[in-house]
């Protein structure tokens, strides 16, 4: 604007600021040790929009986008956000709205700082950008935490967890006890004898064999449907949740002469068996 040489360029505001709230949930003691988080649900109470304002809305713009992000605050007080859920809400429908924040709680757990609260950043934005975008989103208000809010309408964090003492695996099977039908998921010894394999003869020098283990037994199924669990999840099964590689020394011929070579074979040995839902998403790993 103030340059003699450059002509001023004026723009028209298309996008409006999002209203952003940061919710704070104390988490100490919320998730018992030796428990698996199945789901975490954030419930927000959307306050009704005054009828007069509703009448002024055009039918094309009676929705707003609500986005929930996990807010991570580091030691050096820098912060970053991770998107965990986002969906459209209608201005015509007030009441409780549920958001899946399981990933946020998984991230929080990875911090291993139980004293630190869970911070959830909720932003309400226009449904979409563009010339026909409206300001309807400014009419969306959720009851917030703290002062002036009746207890009933405060944001709620619902945690669904499973006691692994009852729904998890039992570790290693008891070698002395045969695994019978319906026995609880456990890791059983299984030896792979490489010496007994014709293809390995004179080729595999080490090891002569190894304990690969296998996961056997059944998993107890938790009761009843959960809010967000869709048809995609199968029953809980006893699976290998941690595996390790196996180094092998083989004989390789070079120039007609055999020489030893070390090779590492991934995912050859079961380190841990767990009960896990078939189809459950694998939690994202938190970066540095």
């Amino acid at each position, binding site marked *: 604007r103030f340059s003699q040489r450059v002509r001023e360029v004026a723009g028209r505001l298309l996008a409006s600021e999002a209203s952003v709230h940061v919710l704070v949930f104390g988490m100490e003691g919320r998730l018992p040790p030796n428990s698996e988080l199945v789901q975490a649900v954030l419930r927000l109470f959307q306050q009704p929009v005054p009828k007069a304002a509703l009448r002024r809305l055009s039918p094309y713009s009676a929705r707003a986008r609500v986005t929930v992000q996990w807010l991570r605050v580091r030691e050096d007080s820098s912060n970053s956000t991770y998107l965990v859920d986002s969906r459209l809400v209608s201005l015509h429908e007030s009441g409780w709205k549920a958001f899946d924040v399981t990933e946020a709680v998984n991230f929080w757990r990875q911090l291993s700082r139980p004293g630190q609260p869970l911070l959830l950043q909720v932003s309400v934005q226009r449904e979409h950008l563009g010339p026909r975008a409206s300001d309807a989103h400014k009419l969306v208000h959720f009851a917030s935490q703290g002062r002036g809010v009746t207890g009933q309408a405060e944001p709620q964090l619902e945690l669904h967890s499973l006691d692994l003492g009852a729904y998890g695996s039992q570790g290693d099977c008891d070698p002395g006890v045969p695994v019978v039908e319906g026995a609880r998921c456990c890791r059983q010894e299984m030896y*792979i004898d490489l010496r007994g394999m014709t293809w390995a003869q004179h080729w595999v020098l080490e090891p002569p064999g190894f304990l690969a283990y296998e996961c056997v037994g059944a998993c107890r199924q938790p009761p009843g449907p959960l809010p967000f669990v869709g048809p995609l999840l199968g029953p809980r099964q006893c699976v290998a949740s941690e595996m390790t590689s196996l180094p092998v020394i083989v004989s390789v011929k070079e120039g007609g002469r055999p020489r030893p070579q070390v090779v590492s074979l991934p995912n050859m040995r079961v380190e841990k068996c767990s009960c896990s839902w078939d189809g459950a998403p694998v939690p994202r790993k938190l970066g540095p």
Partner: protein
Amino acid sequence: LTGEQVLASLLQQLGLREAPILDQRDAEEVATSAHVRAQYVALLQRSHGARSRGK
């Protein structure tokens, strides 16, 4: 895990299509040097530490 799966993994790691056929003389001729054994032991120890996520 089966023997066939171990073989498949070995062939994949070595970029081979099938297991080589070696005879007794080859087996007697090959000597595992201290360097190779040390490499093997180091991998063995590391493998017990580094756990990968199962399927």
